């Protein structure tokens, strides 16, 4: 057999039939690892949020709130609501540790991963748009009308930075989506096999 085919043959022969217990055990390990990563990313995301809000407050306090209007207060409130909402969704979607192979438990896991998948596919864009709007409102409140040039540059830099983050993170996002879809498919397949 040719060398190149031998390499693929190794992968081919690594395929084994697994029973439900084996499949659940493997999936359990994968989900546990994923939960760990998810918790870490939640901590980083919350920290980033807190720092952003902290800076806004610091600027506001050091300016004696003189130049700031109610728009900044509204924007700050929206930011806090966004953070609370984000943490709440994370709390709901953090998949519980899969224990017994019960259909009800699998349903919870499927619902949890489906929600996370939806967040990655749709809510991420809403979240980024709101965050950008929040910062732009803050810049406008701080610089308009006295310092129009700074306002434009700050706005462009923020939008540019967000786009850059989206582009850089896109590959990881696609990988995450593929991973979550795979986990959901496998969970559904195990649930179906259990019913049979």
């Amino acid at each position, binding site marked *: *057999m*040719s060398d*190149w*085919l031998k*390499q*693929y*043959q*190794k*992968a*081919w*022969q*690594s*395929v*084994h*039939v697994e029973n439900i217990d084996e499949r659940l055990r*493997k*999936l359990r*390990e*994968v989900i546990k*690892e*994923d939960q760990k990563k998810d918790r870490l990313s939640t901590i980083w995301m919350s920290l980033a949020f807190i720092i952003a809000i902290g800076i806004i407050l610091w600027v506001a306090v050091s300016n004696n709130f003189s130049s700031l209007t109610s728009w900044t207060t509204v924007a700050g409130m929206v930011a806090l609501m966004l953070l609370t909402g984000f943490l709440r969704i994370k709390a709901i979607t953090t998949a519980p540790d899969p224990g017994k192979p019960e259909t009800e438990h699998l349903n919870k896991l499927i619902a949890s991963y489906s929600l996370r998948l939806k967040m990655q596919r749709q809510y991420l864009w809403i979240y980024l748009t709101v965050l950008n709007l929040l910062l732009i409102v803050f810049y406008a409140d701080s610089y308009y009308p006295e310092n129009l040039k700074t306002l434009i540059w700050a706005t462009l830099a923020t939008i540019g930075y967000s786009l850059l983050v989206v582009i850089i993170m896109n590959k990881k996002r696609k990988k995450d989506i*593929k*991973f979550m879809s*795979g*986990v959901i*498919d*496998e969970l559904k*397949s195990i649930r179906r096999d259990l019913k049979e």
Partner: protein
Amino acid sequence: MNQRRYEDIIRMHKDTIYRVCLGYIYEADLVEDLFQEVLIALWKSLSTFRGEARLSTFIYRVTVNTAISFNRKLKKHHWENRLEHSPVVYDSPADEITNKEELELLRSCIRRLEDQDRLIITLHLEELSYKEIADIAGISVNYVGVKINRIKATLKQCIQDNE
């Protein structure tokens, strides 16, 4: 055939049976269905095994025949539309990821082959001799050699194009 003997045989051969199903059918759900059908077919037919060929050859033959009739039934139901559905893929330890990626690439190239070629290369990957493949596929040994060379060239090209 008593159940104990049947279970022993299946335990010994289940992985190879499953891989033949995997080579012949692409969509994950359908592979499972075919696998179940092969198990049923073996339960029905193992009692007719008289020892004229090796047991493994007999099992492969039943698997291949079941796969062919399964595929025929599927084609009637326009299963081609389902080919785009990818089988389950999720991260696992690093070496398994590499295996999975290679396996997926290999399977996606195998699925583009003709029905008979898919079976031949699957049996070749299982390290069956040309003689055994010829017996199972019902073609001459020389033709198996020619076919395998052609299939390998096609697969190599496909893998290079998709890597």
